[in-house]
């Protein structure tokens, strides 16, 4: 008798009809969007704030350096002495005072610049000032050596390395950013999915144990059927929830940004900075073009297929372990000791993904971790946008499936013994013994 569809249906419906599940499904995107909107709004406020920086330049060399910008005004306090200048700045409640002391040579000038302020100034402002001063000093030194300003201007070159693969595929810097974004999103999605719904599976196994219904159920169905039904049913509920989140989030995002006119993408990610740098170098139009080619350059078919397989494989691997943990313990507090070994490889995978794949997607570390089954789903998904040979993907997937089958066998063993054990908190040694029952 195949009861799997029946079990899946029950697991799915109980999850989906659960009140807190429904509340979370509809509330989370609202909360998320609200948070993003607030952050975006606040950071915009922050950027909009005008600040005045007073400059006391005793050397007179830097007079043209500080041009007013949208958010920053520079006022010259030349002619005052330092004490008066500080007092004045304090009184005016300026952001701060930049003091360039009188020196006899350009060399010592660099070491005699100070910034006075009420609170410690922001790093970006300081580095901005430093950049400006450095640039001027370099020009002045070059001029001292007889180079004219025109020559300096003329010597500026903007290098844009055109990228092309051996197969003749053109790409650009923006490609990497797009690839990173795709890989990162895929890997992170898997990570979140495992943690959220793995826990849900575990709780539902524990619930069956604590409500003592388990023995009634498994006198009708095989434990492995029950376990797989649980995993699949819960995953389907998870997919449903995710889909609703994405759709609802998208709609809300549109509504919010159109109402408040806030560019939400500004607040989104640190990748933004890379993006901005790329944007500075090229014109906006070129960038859009590049972005489109970048996306079309992605191995889309490969990405989709690999995403499906690695996602399912990785998710099933971890969720069967979650199910085994749920079966081994009596209540949620006892799960702690077993959670670490599961979370470690998962977190490791994300770190490897974030740090080494960005650095070198085909380096030894990323390659190795994209083969180890417990980290491969996340790491491989992050690598694939950069182009991974099919044999590597195949081998990694094969290893993953092998491990997955082993994990299900292992989990099923633990599960069928564990679900009938009450009142004991098992040790690892005992779990190992159960394998032989």
């Amino acid at each position, binding site marked *: *008798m195949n*009861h799997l569809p*029946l*079990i899946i249906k*029950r697991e799915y419906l*109980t999850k989906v009809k*659960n009140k807190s599940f429904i509340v979370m499904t509809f509330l989370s995107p609202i909360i998320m969007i609200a948070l993003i909107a607030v952050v975006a709004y606040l950071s915009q406020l922050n950027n909009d704030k005008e600040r005045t920086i007073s400059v006391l330049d005793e050397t007179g060399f830097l007079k043209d350096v500080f041009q007013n910008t949208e958010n920053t005004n520079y006022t010259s306090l030349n002619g005052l002495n330092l004490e008066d200048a500080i007092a004045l700045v304090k009184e005016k409640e300026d952001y701060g005072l930049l003091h360039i002391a009188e020196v006899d040579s350009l060399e010592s000038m660099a070491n005699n610049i100070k910034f006075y302020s009420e609170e410690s100034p922001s790093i970006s402002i300081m580095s901005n000032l430093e950049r400006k001063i450095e640039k001027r000093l370099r020009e002045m030194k070059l001029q001292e050596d007889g180079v004219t300003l025109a020559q300096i201007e003329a010597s500026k070159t903007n290098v844009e390395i055109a990228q092309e693969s051996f197969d003749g595929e053109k790409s650009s810097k923006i490609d990497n950013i797009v690839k990173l974004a795709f890989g990162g999103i895929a890997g992170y999605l898997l990570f979140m999915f495992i943690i959220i719904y793995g826990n849900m599976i575990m709780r539902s196994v524990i*619930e*069956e144990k604590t*409500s*003592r*219904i388990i*023995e*009634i*159920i*498994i*006198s*009708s*169905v*095989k434990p492995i059927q029950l376990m797989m039904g649980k995993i699949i049913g819960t995953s389907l509920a998870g997919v449903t929830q995710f889909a609703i989140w994405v759709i609802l989030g998208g709609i809300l995002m549109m509504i919010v940004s159109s109402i408040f006119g806030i560019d939400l993408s500004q607040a989104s990610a640190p990748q933004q900075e890379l993006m901005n740098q790329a944007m500075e170098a090229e014109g906006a139009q070129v960038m859009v073009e590049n972005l489109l080619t970048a996306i079309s350059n992605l191995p889309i078919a490969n990405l989709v297929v690999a995403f499906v397989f690695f996602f399912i494989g990785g998710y099933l691997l971890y969720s069967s372990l979650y199910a085994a943990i749920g079966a081994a313990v009596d209540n949620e507090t006892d799960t702690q000791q077993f959670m670490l070994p599961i979370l470690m490889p998962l977190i490791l995978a994300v770190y490897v993904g974030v740090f080494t794949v960005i650095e070198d997607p085909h380096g030894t570390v990323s390659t190795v971790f994209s083969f180890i089954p417990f980290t491969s789903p996340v790491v491989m998904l992050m690598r694939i946008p950069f182009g991974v040979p099919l044999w590597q993907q195949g081998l990694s997937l094969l290893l993953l499936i092998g491990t997955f089958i082993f994990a299900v066998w292992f989990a099923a063993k633990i599960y069928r013994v564990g679900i*009938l054990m*009450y009142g004991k908190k098992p040790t690892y040694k005992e779990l190992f*013994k159960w394998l*032989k*029952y």
Partner: protein
Amino acid sequence: MNDLLVANSVSKNFGNFRALNQVSIAVPKGSIFGLLGPNGAGKTTLIRIINQITMPDEGSVLLDGNALKPEHIRDIGYLPEERGLYKSMKVGEQCLYLAQLKGLSKSEAKSRLKYWFDKLEIGDWWNKKIQELSKGQAQKIQFIVTVLHKPKLLIFDEPFSGFDPINANLIKDEILKLRDEGATVIFSTHRMESVEELCDHIALIHKSNKVLDGKLNDIKRQYKTNTFEVGLESSNKENILSEIKNTFEVLPATFKNLNDDIKLNIKISDSTSPNDLLSFLTAKAEVHHFVEVIPSASDIFIQTVKNN
């Protein structure tokens, strides 16, 4: 084939612990079979093997002459001792689900559930959640779910725990009715009075071994000691007592009666008939109480367990 269920030398180990050692039982069709034993003796392991929850390491189990197969699940109804229901699921939905797991179609399950709900007068529980029911009420649901698919073999592990006497009687009557309709029942309990009341056969498992097995009456016959409870009235108490003590083996009385002039348990030898004893007594005093001591299931249980 008169036995519905036969277990042949079934053994089961958990690591180094032998939970069952060469246990054989035969459960006759249409009987109520008491599976007894102290806590931890191995009863539940045997029951789980019959339910195919665990597999035996050695030995085999036959149901109706065939080795146990997954298909047999629908022929067995099992009410475990550790039982419960999904707390946040509605009664009706839950019953349908569990019935479908036993292989009933949804419509069939619905009509049978209606019959049982009407019978036990709980029709208005259909849309309640289990957590809104009392423990006894939930037990009723569990009972219905166990018998709903009309299994050939019913296994009840402590079916009466949690029931008040009225409901316990109700369930007991239903069990007897199911037996009369042709079901075979394995009944595991520590409540010896219900064993006495219900069981035709018993098997006693102790420390993983079967130590006793057979028809309850045969076993009682085997365990009786030719002892009689005797209550007498006489004005000459001392004399009669010493006369009896000279002729028969006298034990302290184990019964209560209204008159306590002389209360004795008298054990007679195999060659003496009860009539001999009775005529001896009637000649000397007025007999108010004369009953053969039949060992109770509880006595047999305690004695067997102590001796092993």
